[in-house]
């Protein structure tokens, strides 16, 4: 898939995020928008044996959204990839919906692990990667973490184990948007330096721009070629990316746009779409 097509998918996914969160009148747009390119690249380019008709294929690559509050980006990506009709995005967080506030593997096909309680997803991804090694299977496991989430100690327990077991079939992607609920991660409880932490846990570390598909392609290629250690891709991102008034604003971590704000957001995204079609 060429870069332009990927960019268009990412923009459609951003629209899905905004539509879902607006309809729900709740949810987490900021950290969903920041990771749209990452999920686009994973589901449209990187991950193997992803098939909406066979979501439980035992040989599929797995994805664990450890920052489970970014459920809107996962749902919008799965819808964009054909797992369910896009209209269902409007049921987000409503009673009876398969689109729970945080992803539920028993509700929605395509969700490989239920997540939401921060710090827990990576351990389950490590378990999946370990299972592949024990069974001599080729599937790979990808997990997206928040840069606030890594304040949880369990993340480092999981990293220690993954490094110790040389799980080179595991790729951790850190959505480094710099903001958490209470403000700038540097001010709340700084997790920096990031590279050195993952290096110390015996990871291969790659830095990328989270919104640059060429950089993401190169990073995932390097991760696949790296043997004997897991890879951490530290993806510098813009929280709220694509929606003018949400960008770099911690206030949009967990808040839905009102009707007026919704119109502005959709207009912003329509402009991006128009620029892509030129």
């Amino acid at each position, binding site marked *: 898939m060429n870069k332009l097509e990927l960019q268009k998918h990412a923009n459609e996914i951003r629209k899905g995020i905004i539509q879902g969160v607006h309809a729900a009148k709740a949810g987490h747009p900021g950290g969903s928008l920041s990771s749209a390119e990452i999920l686009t690249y994973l589901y449209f380019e990187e991950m193997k044996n992803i098939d909406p008709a066979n979501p439980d294929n035992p040989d599929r690559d797995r994805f664990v959204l450890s920052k489970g509050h970014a459920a809107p980006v996962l749902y919008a990506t799965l819808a964009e990839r054909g797992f369910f009709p896009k209209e269902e995005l409007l049921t987000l967080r409503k009673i009876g919906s398969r689109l729970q506030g945080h992803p539920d593997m028993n509700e929605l096909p395509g969700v490989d692990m239920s997540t939401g309680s921060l710090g*827990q997803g990576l351990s389950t991804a490590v378990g*999946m990667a370990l299972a592949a090694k*024990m069974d001599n299977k080729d599937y790979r496991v990808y997990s997206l973490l928040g840069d606030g989430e890594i304040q949880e100690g369990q993340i480092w327990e*999981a990293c220690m184990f993954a490094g110790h077991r040389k799980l080179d079939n595991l790729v951790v992607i850190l959505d480094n948007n710099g903001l958490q609920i209470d403000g700038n991660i540097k001010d709340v409880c700084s997790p920096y330096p990031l590279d050195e932490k993952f290096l110390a846990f015996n990871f291969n570390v790659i830095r990328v721009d989270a919104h640059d598909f060429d950089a993401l392609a190169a990073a995932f290629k390097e991760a696949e070629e790296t043997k004997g250690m897991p890879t951490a891709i530290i993806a510098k991102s813009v929280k709220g990316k694509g929606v003018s008034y949400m960008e770099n604003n911690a206030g949009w971590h967990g808040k839905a746009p009102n009707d007026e704000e919704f119109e502005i957001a959709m207009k912003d995204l329509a402009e991006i779409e128009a620029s892509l079609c030129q």
Partner: protein
Amino acid sequence: MSVKVNLNSDKKVATRESYGNALVEVGQEHENLVVLDADLAGATKTEIFKKAFPERHIDCGIAEGNMMGIAAGLASCGKVPFASSFAMFATGRAFEQVRNSIAHTKLNVKVAATHAGISVGEDGATHQCCEDLSLMRTIPNMVVINPCDDVEAKAAVKAAYEYEGPVYLRFGRLAIPVINDPETYKFELGKGVVMREGKDLTIFATGLEVYEALVAAEKLAVDGIDAEVINIHTLKPIDEELVAASLAKTGCGVTVEEHSIIGGLYSAVCEVAAKKQPTKILAIGVEDVFGHSGPAKDLLKEFGLDSEGIYNKIKEFLK
């Protein structure tokens, strides 16, 4: 009808030992059984499995929360993980990981904890978990099993493997008498077991207290009190029919557990009684206090959880 029980056996086995041995037996038959531990393999006895199947034993180091998550991930890929630590850390430290990564997901993980209750002994209060049954019972989708001896513990491990979904298994450190008959014993998940028939009161007991309750019942018999003793090895789902029927028959209940009287067997039995057969019920257990260091046997005596303590409390209750 009551099952065959031997109160005079010389054989004593700690149920943690039964656990380690049963893992080897079940693991021999099932390739997908894997065992996780958190640097306590020697104490939890998963080292017995490790010797037999080193490639299927995963030591996660001292990181119980991560261990539960790894178990969940393994289960999502078709493995049947038995994740082990002391009851304190498996259910306390890792409570939320068990709740969210294992139980909410309905993944096929068995949380198998040893060193439960005050019979941990010398290690003292920080390691004597008397809250595990309560914690695990409150989690939806979780089956809670507390076997009473070697025979039942081994059978429980097999049953837990065969059951599809999360299970909590409670094992002890102290060697305790083998009271069940290995030839005729049958484990049925969710079923209470009448160990002794009686008509004057029903003693519901679980874990190592089943033996102590049976001995206490024999002492009561000398005084002309005919106690029924029911072994509740599965606290959840509890055998509601048997509990209600026995209370209806005797009209008097007692629960005995090496656990807090809050949230464990007493609560489980009272929940059934309140709903189906309102009855006055005496709670014998750890009475909302922490334990402390000492030899296990002495602690059980001090806390009134040996046969003599049980006998005395019941006599007082019946006055």
